[in-house]
């Protein structure tokens, strides 16, 4: 199989639970002694470290939320002194306050290990040249991929974001075989190659794409694979837990979670009770070995399900999570109906007359009624000079979207470029409703 921790990847459930139990007991002791903010939560819930004897006891522990982290900005959740912290990352919040995470050297090593394992799951080897177009900086994408790639022994090209022409030049000249970036930027690069009269995809040697940091549909995945001539893999992660590499797609639809490091649970969004395998809910993570900012039962706000058992695709036994199909906080409630941008994206990318990955949702409130407008780009190949053809297409899009989300939307067909993808995370929703 791959070089990284074959024993962990194919551990029996019994051995995995034993390992997780040992680590959880240690982690909770450490947190109770060193992380004031969470100790207060445990005290309030009446839970002592001695109550946690195995991984099964995890449900006794209180949750941690993004709100908790913001309230304790910047260092309130740090469990060790700056003497042992070697790096700080931060993720931008839509509300303005950052969430900060500090790492000890061991935390960074574990994270690199998780990323290297992820690369191995995708079939990357030390012979590969990895072109990294994730942002370097406070965002964990760039440095996470960077050190993970180095740990594996790949040749890492730390390109960062921006200057697409130069990126393409380097990818071509260096013969990069692996591309790491956001899916929307991958598509952007694919389109840039098509537009460039001096380039064709045959100039490139890409074979594997490791894409993450924003939710994307299977339709978009197909588009990227078609344009960049590579196999696209989902990588999942969040800075609070470490960064990209928390889980990784093996080529089937699901993602393998590095559960010896990051323990996943899925809970019902309303009751917060754990749900059975295969049932969708909010993904919750507990770090099992973190020193800098350990987080216990951290609510990710990402919606997915998990599945135990041997992976029918690759044979690994580590738990799988489904692709994240939405977030509790990017869920739009329109006329009382829960709508996820990912559902709309799936519907749009199936329609060949559209460039379905180029879309923007605009929500307004007119009087007492919410309205949803979907702006989506047409595929120039299918443009017609007759109003009846455009209307036919609008009806088709309307029909597909309505059957996907259950409510009607106003469809605005746009020209290419009117709904641009960005070089980082692409904004998909504008909510202009003023909620009083």
């Amino acid at each position, binding site marked *: 199989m791959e070089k990284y921790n074959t024993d962990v990847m194919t551990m029996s459930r019994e051995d995995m639970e034993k390992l997780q139990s040992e680590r959880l007991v240690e982690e909770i002791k450490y947190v109770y002694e060193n992380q004031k903010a969470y100790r207060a939560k445990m005290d309030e819930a009446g839970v002592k470290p001695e109550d946690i004897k195995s991984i099964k006891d995890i449900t006794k522990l209180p949750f941690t939320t993004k709100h908790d982290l913001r309230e304790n900005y910047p260092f309130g959740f740090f469990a060790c002194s700056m003497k042992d912290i070697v790096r700080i990352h931060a993720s931008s919040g839509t509300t303005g306050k950052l969430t900060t995470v500090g790492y000890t050297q061991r935390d960074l090593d574990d994270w690199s290990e998780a990323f290297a394992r992820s690369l191995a799951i995708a079939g990357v080897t030390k012979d590969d040249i990895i072109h990294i177009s994730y942002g370097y900086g406070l965002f964990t994408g760039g440095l996470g991929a960077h050190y993970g790639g180095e740990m594996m022994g790949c040749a890492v090209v730390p390109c960062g974001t921006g200057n697409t022409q130069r990126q393409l030049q380097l990818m071509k000249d260096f013969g990069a075989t692996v591309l790491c970036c956001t899916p929307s930027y991958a598509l952007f690069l694919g389109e840039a190659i098509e537009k460039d009269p001096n380039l064709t995809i045959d100039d490139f040697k890409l074979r594997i794409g490791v894409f993450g940091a924003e939710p994307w549909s299977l339709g978009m995945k197909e588009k990227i694979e078609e344009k960049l001539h590579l196999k696209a893999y989902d990588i999942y992660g969040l800075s609070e837990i470490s960064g990209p590499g928390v889980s990784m797609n093996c080529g089937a639809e699901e993602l393998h979670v590095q559960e010896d490091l990051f323990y996943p649970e899925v809970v019902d969004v309303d009751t917060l009770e754990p749900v059975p395998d295969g049932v969708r809910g909010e993904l919750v993570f507990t770090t099992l070995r973190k020193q800098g900012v350990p987080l216990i039962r951290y609510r990710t706000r990402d919606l997915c399900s998990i599945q135990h058992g041997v992976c029918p695709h690759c044979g690994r036994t580590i738990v799988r999570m489904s692709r994240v199909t939405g977030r509790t906080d990017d869920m739009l409630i329109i006329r009382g109906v829960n709508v996820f941008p990912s559902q709309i994206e799936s519907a749009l990318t199936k329609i060949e007359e559209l460039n379905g990955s180029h879309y923007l949702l605009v929500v307004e409130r007119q009087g007492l009624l919410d309205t949803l407008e979907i702006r989506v780009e*047409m595929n*120039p190949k299918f*443009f*017609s*000079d*007759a*109003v*009846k053809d*455009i*209307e036919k297409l609008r009806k088709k899009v309307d029909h597909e979207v309505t059957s996907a989300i259950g409510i009607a939307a106003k469809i*605005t*067909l*746009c*020209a*290419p*470029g*009117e709904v641009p993808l960005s070089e980082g995370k692409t904004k998909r929703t504008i909510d202009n409703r003023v909620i009083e």
Partner: protein
Amino acid sequence: MIINQLAVYSQNEVGKLLPIIKTLGMNGINIESLNIADTPEYGIVRMLTSDNVKAQQILSEKGFISTITSLVGVEVKDEAGELSKTLETLAKNGIDIEYIYSYSRKDGKALILIKTDKIKEAEDLLK
């Protein structure tokens, strides 16, 4: 005769027509006729220009979506009753008109432009 028409898509919003026209003007492309099929949300700007192929290429570089369509063009005298003759011929022969427009020229002639599925048939009938 067969005449090529350039059709460009545009949202129906203030100021949206200008950049299309400006782009053509700046590239030395003359617009011989222009009309817009409008809906509340968008319009299709239909034009005969001095160079449709070049116009389409330039517009596409600027991010506009466009297509070149063949129309049947009929030159008639710019006089009362001329258009009805043309329409009669088409109706009698079961030719469906998708859209039609015309413009008068300085030389006392008018050009009638017809979009139809049966373009070859229509052209032969109207020779």
